[in-house]
């Protein structure tokens, strides 16, 4: 069974440990993904917290049509989009310079050096490219799952992903990075 769904069921059954498990499982990844959406660490952390607050206050129904993680990320994405509607995000380069622990979180989450290089290159791409590449490359969501989270059709997501990969390839080649086509 999906561990996230299991923990969610545990919470719905009245055990707060369920939400503790969800935070332990998904917080780091969710914040990093939302950072890719907002380009603002504070906003990303706040949106992630808001996401969990929405879960525990409104107790939405999880249908199980997707993985729990996909569902959670979709809610997080929506939350971040709403937050972005209020506040203009910082340019990514400026946001990355903020000394609030975000970099450590990224390093802890992305241990592989090669992936870290890719991750750095992501920062130079457009927000749409960053999001879709983050989901498919770092979080290893399928194209369909990424489409669900980003509220796009699968086809549109695949087109976006293709373009994002090309853009990423160009960025990596500037660093003489050995790029392997998937």
């Amino acid at each position, binding site marked *: 069974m999906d561990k996230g769904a299991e923990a969610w069921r545990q919470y719905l059954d009245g055990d707060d440990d369920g939400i*503790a498990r969800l*935070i332990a499982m998904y917080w780091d990844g969710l914040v990093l993904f939302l950072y890719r959406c907002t380009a603002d660490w504070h906003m990303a952390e706040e949106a992630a917290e808001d996401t969990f*607050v929405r879960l*525990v206050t409104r107790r939405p129904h999880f249908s199980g049509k997707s993985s729990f993680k996909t569902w959670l990320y979709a809610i997080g994405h*929506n939350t971040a989009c709403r937050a972005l509607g209020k506040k203009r995000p910082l340019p990514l380069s400026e946001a990355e310079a903020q000394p609030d622990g975000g970099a*450590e979180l990224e390093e802890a989450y992305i241990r592989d050096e090669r992936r870290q290089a890719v991750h750095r290159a992501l920062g130079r791409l457009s927000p749409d490219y960053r999001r879709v590449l983050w989901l498919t490359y770092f979080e290893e969501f399928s194209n369909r799952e990424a489409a669900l989270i980003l509220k796009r059709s699968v086809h549109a997501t695949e087109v976006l992903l293709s373009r994002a990969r090309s853009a990423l390839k160009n960025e990596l080649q500037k660093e003489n990075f050995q790029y392997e086509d998937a």
Partner: protein
Amino acid sequence: MKTHDEILSAVLARRDAYLAAKEKRARMAYGGVTAAVCCTAVAASVWLWKGGKPDWPVKEAPTAGTTVTTATPTDGFHETTGEAETAGTVTDAAQSEPTHTAVTTTRTDPTGTEKGTTMASTSGIPLLTTQAERPTTATTDHAFGTGGTIPPTESESTTTQAAASSRYTEIDDPTEEQLPEWFPHVTAFEGEYDLLPGGSWPLGEPLGPQDLWLHYEGRDENGRYVGDKIVTATFYTVEGWADKEILALKFRDYDTVLYYARQESTDATKY
């Protein structure tokens, strides 16, 4: 950077505050908010709750047999066409709950031609218009938006709507990204509350005008949570915009219309 334990504490603290506020609202509920849902397929009231008191003066409700003057129809879909302030006679009064009476008012123009009905509640707030007064042709440049065309709504028969409802799949939380370009970008309510839609997204229900609960989460100038507000609004379905079903929410006493979209499922047919 917060630890997971700190995050958990913050999340649970906000949950507890939310539940406490919700309980307080339930205790102090004024005028039977839930009764607003009973206004069938006709538009009903917009209720706003803050500290258990409405934010506008409460008027005497019309009773059956009396003649009333209705408010200017401002359902947001069209400009009024001259029948503003039309007098009508209350022809029916249905006691829905002890504290909330739904009153149907027949509206007529100065020549005596019936122009549809309105629904009122005991508070006298509502008076939204029925579909009879809604446009049958596309209109443009509405007061609530920055331009654009809203498709005709004449096909909104209850039968059609009920059948159509199964053609849609849920969007967990509609976002602005799903809204058409002419969305007026209303994200704040009274300047300090952000909309958190979806709490009562009425899936599977007929798509005619009906009430919808909205949950607003208040934040201070630093973006911190300060409280909640529950609003009921009426939503209308405006069909056939691209591949989405567009829902329009009209807050009568505020110059505000919100739109949400619900996407068709893959097996959807054209409108």
